[in-house]
């Protein structure tokens, strides 16, 4: 019970962090049809900016300033690079963001170096929030959960309850009509791209000090976020939410289980030795298999339900 509760909480906080990343990606994809390969690079930039800013003026201002800066950079990139290749089609758009991810990685290495930077938690977030069955649950992880839920709520309110949200929603399905009503649709796209980048950076600000801040952090989470978006259903925000939690919980539980097929068979009275067929496979513990579980889920999902959990159409 203790193992279950703590793993569940850890899994949920990791899943919510994944959702903060995948929500921006999904928003950009569903609006502009652009798969932003550099999305997790913005996440990394958020973490590094926050590290530098919090060294100068503290963590709490950084929580606000770093996402704004990254959002601005994202908007500039959309305006001067992405919009230019838009006429060539979706593959060049993907390529230009791929090139950007390359560039950001090298720039981060150039400015902050190759090693991990000491980006620590602020005092207010250090230590446990509560103790459950003798195990402590850290404040930082609960802060991630709180922030992700707040963000989910405010994005939802922004999209459904405000004027700009309605314009964004309309531009999603009928860009020409919205344009003829006098709205500047390219500027809306620019705002959405910048907003998505800012959300990713916000995730970076709190993910960077809860986990680690290093040049490999973008790549480590990058492909997982793509898995989330495909499993949830391309362009579905609710699907991304569900898939993030699913994958977060799945991975957290898996790394903690030290059982293998061999121990399972042993319990059934079958002994696995070096001579047994498929010995290598049977000896693998669940914890060892954990890194590939999201990708296995992706493959299974594509075979049995190609449109994803909550996808609308089979594209």
């Amino acid at each position, binding site marked *: 019970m203790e193992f279950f509760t703590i793993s569940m909480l850890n899994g949920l906080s990791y899943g919510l962090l994944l959702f903060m990343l995948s929500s921006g990606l999904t928003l950009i994809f569903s609006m502009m049809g652009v798969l932003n390969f550099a999305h997790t690079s913005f996440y990394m930039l958020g973490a590094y900016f926050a590290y530098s800013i919090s060294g100068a003026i503290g963590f709490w201002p950084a929580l606000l300033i770093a996402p704004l800066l990254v959002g601005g950079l994202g908007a500039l990139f959309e305006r001067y690079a992405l919009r230019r290749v838009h006429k060539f089609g979706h593959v060049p758009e993907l*390529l230009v963001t791929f090139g950007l991810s390359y560039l950001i990685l090298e720039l981060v290495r150039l400015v902050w170096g190759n090693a991990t930077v000491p980006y620590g938690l602020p005092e207010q977030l250090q230590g446990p929030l509560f103790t459950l069955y003798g195990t402590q649950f850290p404040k930082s992880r609960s802060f991630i959960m709180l922030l992700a839920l707040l963000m989910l709520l405010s994005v939802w309110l922004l999209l459904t309850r405000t004027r700009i949200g309605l314009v964004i929603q309309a531009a999603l399905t009928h860009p020409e009509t919205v344009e003829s009503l006098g709205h500047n649709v390219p500027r809306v796209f620019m705002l959405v791209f910048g907003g998505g980048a800012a959300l990713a950076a916000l995730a970076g600000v709190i993910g960077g000090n809860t986990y680690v801040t290093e040049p490999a952090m973008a790549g480590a989470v990058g492909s997982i976020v793509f898995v989330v978006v495909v499993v949830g259903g*391309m362009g579905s925000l609710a699907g991304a939410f569900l898939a993030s939690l699913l994958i977060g919980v799945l991975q957290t539980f898996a790394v903690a289980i030290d059982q293998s097929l061999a121990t399972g068979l042993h319990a059934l009275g079958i002994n696995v030795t070096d001579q047994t067929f498929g010995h290598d496979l049977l000896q693998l513990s669940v914890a060892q298999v954990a890194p590939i579980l999201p990708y296995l889920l992706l493959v299974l999902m594509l075979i049995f339900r190609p449109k994803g959990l909550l996808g609308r159409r089979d594209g």
Partner: protein
Amino acid sequence: MANSVVKSGPLGRVVVWGLFAVLLIVLPLLFRSSLALTMLSQMGYLVIICLSYNILLGQGGMLSFGHAVYTGMGAFIAVHAMNQATKGAIWLPVSLVPLVGGVAGMFFAALFGYVTTKKSGTTFAMITLGIGELVAAMSLMFPAFFGGEGGVTTNRTYGAPFLGLTFGPQIQVYCLIAAYCFVSTALMYAFTGTPLGRMLNAVRDNPERVEFIGYNTQWVRYLGFIIAGFFAGIGGALAAINFEIVGAADSLSSVRSGGYLLFTFLGGATFFFGPIIGAVLLVLASVLLSEITKAWLLYLGLVFLLMVMYAPGGIASLIMMNLRVAKSGKLARLLGWYALLAVTGALTFFGIAALIEMIYHMQLNEALGPVLSFLGIELNVKSAASWAGTVVVALIGLGLFELTRKRFALRWGEVQGEIEAAIRAREAA
């Protein structure tokens, strides 16, 4: 080699292919150093790999982020086959090992391609990335087959000599690679003309219409994917023969896949011969450029980004467009502009590169003192004059370049318009 240079019938085709063969034979005679021979060998199999990648990207419009899976698996199966043959468990001369790798690549492409080619466009790209990560992560779980961190080693000099070749000296390995390179390139060029190759183009351009005619687009993509996997496997196996070692962390990684994508695109995905240029650049950049500067990945990223934005057809399309201009006799009008662009571009590059090198020097070589030499000029990272000077040079260069580029773009548009008008007039006549 090029489908549009050679429209002049069978004679032109024979000339181009003859030149390609002569080049493969003459190059190792011209560049005799062992470094040059190593680089030529690498270029040989990378040409195969980049061309196979272009079956996906250029011909089928499929942006794959996991091509290293098929080259890597081809390499691993080839290495294990060679080790078995050394033990005498199977009969397999070294000259046939690339075919084993090809079949392995084909097998894995058939296996994974069934899932990936269900989708096209951006979703396809994401799924290939996922499969690539899956295979890369799995390779670390089975050290018995993938050799763990150390990789799997082999020895290519087993068995009886084939036509007097023992494959001990590098030049003999080059001969093997060159032979496979020529045959594979010819086969892949022939593939572009087959009905399947043509359907692949159609599926790239207009899948709905293809479905309407009655073809299954998914099946066409799947077959194209399997063929690309076959040639990727050949390339991987040749790499394994060349290095006699294959490492899981390296040859299956997404970094490797990204490299194939980057250079195939830089070379030019829209022309058949583009990836050949890309493969040559890949070797030059990773062997020579990385020696000159530590920041080579940064320059590469910048060049790639500019290429996607301003010349999405890659270097090949730049060559072909200028050939078209030259054919119509209008190149002379642009030459002056090219010279101006080159001068202002060089100035910009000089300023920006000096800045980058100074920052890199601060980051990496602090211990060596504050002075670095850049293209013969002494720069001091501690002096404000060096910083201000490079920034000013970069800004002036950028401003002049942008000014020239805008004027040039106008001229270029004029010339292209005239050529197109001439073509239309000829067609009407």
